[in-house]
């Protein structure tokens, strides 16, 4: 089946089409990657044309022919990021959304901020909403909804759970069937499909680290520290000692390798980032 002999014909075929500028795999990959961080706009303009034509000509008052069009503009915007990076997106009302990697945000530009500001989310994102009394900001996920007036909070919409953490302000967190919950700054909650909404009694102090790059550890067991760093920076850490170490330290916006160095110094261990 496999001819290990390369004959003239085979060589000529490839040579015939050979072009040093074509078939550049790296270039092609870059183009494909670029296409995945896009803002896809859907336009669908619905026209309703009604025309009435008078059959009978009535002496007193004629029925005239009129044509009117009714535009109902739908202008859906979908914002997503590729698997590696987070994205900052500014909505038309200046509210800011920080999308974590692989999150997807959807909203209809046509009626955004008309009577309310509605967005749909899957994945994880942090919102900074501009205060607007007359136009409530609503985030809808497959499982729950969040209504706010103006505040900063994080929503994480997975397949079967939507969780929320409030950084400042107040939100109303609700589900189709169950009574809704008002959450304040520092509080978190989660909603499961067809389940109750439960307040999070043990909110992870570092729940926003992916966005803020600020970590706060207080007598935290080393395995948990490592897990958090791996999760936020997408690295794999090795040389973890068996002994029971705890870390009390906070890190503000420094690189993961610096953090590892500092931890190694503090605990006299030899953690390494696997390349």
């Amino acid at each position, binding site marked *: 089946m*496999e001819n*290990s002999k*390369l004959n003239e014909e085979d060589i000529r075929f490839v040579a*015939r089409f*050979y072009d040093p500028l074509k078939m*550049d795999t790296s270039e092609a990959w870059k183009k*494909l990657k670029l296409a*995945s961080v896009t803002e896809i706009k859907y336009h669908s303009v619905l026209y309703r044309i009604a025309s009435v034509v008078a059959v009978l000509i009535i002496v007193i008052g004629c029925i005239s022919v009129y044509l009117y069009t009714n535009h109902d503009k739908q202008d859906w915007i979908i914002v997503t990021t*590729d*698997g590696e990076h987070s994205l900052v997106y500014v909505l038309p009302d200046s509210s800011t959304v920080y999308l974590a990697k692989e999150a997807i945000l959807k909203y209809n530009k046509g009626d955004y901020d008309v009577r309310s500001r509605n967005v749909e989310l899957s994945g994880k994102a942090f919102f900074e909403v501009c205060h607007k009394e007359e136009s409530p900001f609503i985030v809808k996920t497959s499982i729950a909804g969040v209504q706010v007036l103006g505040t900063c909070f994080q929503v994480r919409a997975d397949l079967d759970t939507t969780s929320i953490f409030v950084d400042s302000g107040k939100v109303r967190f609700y589900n189709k069937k169950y009574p809704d919950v008002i959450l304040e700054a520092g509080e978190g909650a989660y909603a499961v499909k067809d389940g109750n909404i439960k307040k999070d009694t043990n909110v992870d102090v570092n729940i926003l680290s992916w966005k803020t790059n600020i970590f706060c550890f207080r007598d935290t067991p080393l395995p948990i520290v490592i897990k958090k760093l791996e999760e936020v920076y997408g690295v794999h850490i090795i040389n973890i000692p068996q002994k029971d170490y705890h870390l009390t330290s906070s890190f503000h916006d420094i690189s993961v390798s610096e953090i590892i160095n500092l931890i190694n110094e503090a605990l006299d261990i030899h953690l390494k980032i696997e390349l």
Partner: protein
Amino acid sequence: MELTVKEFEHFYRCLYRPLGMYVLRYTENIDDAEDIVQEAFANVWDKVSSGEVISDFKSYMYRVVRNRALSFLQSSPYELSEEMIQNDNSDEVEEEQIYIAERDARLWTAIDKLPAQRRKIFLLAKRDGLTYAEIAEELNLSVKTIEHQISKALKCLRDKAVKIYTFFFG
């Protein structure tokens, strides 16, 4: 996502050129071949991003590009040879054809790596069909030199095209 971006990139880099060479057999046009392969990957990327799981990624890609190549040919004034229509009946792309595509891809890469002058001479002979005498005159070199360059090029290509190891193309 079942497939991470890194894993997808790995598949992409390994399959891009072989798939291109495979489609080239149908389209006989390099730009069309690249377009078809790129569109296929974009389409599969969307599927994977929305949670679809693909087992045996490589076979899947070959089937996808074969179908795209065939519909491309059908919608343009090209003639489908009897061979091509026959091959379409089986669902799987035959091992033999995949082997040939991979070998052609290694050949392409090997041509990339030839030193500039040698590659030029090689292409004048194998692509443009010039005789050694004509090439010698064109480049102001002796026929012996041309012979030597061609034989070195062929040896290098044969070595590289036939070896069975995987490496990233391009």
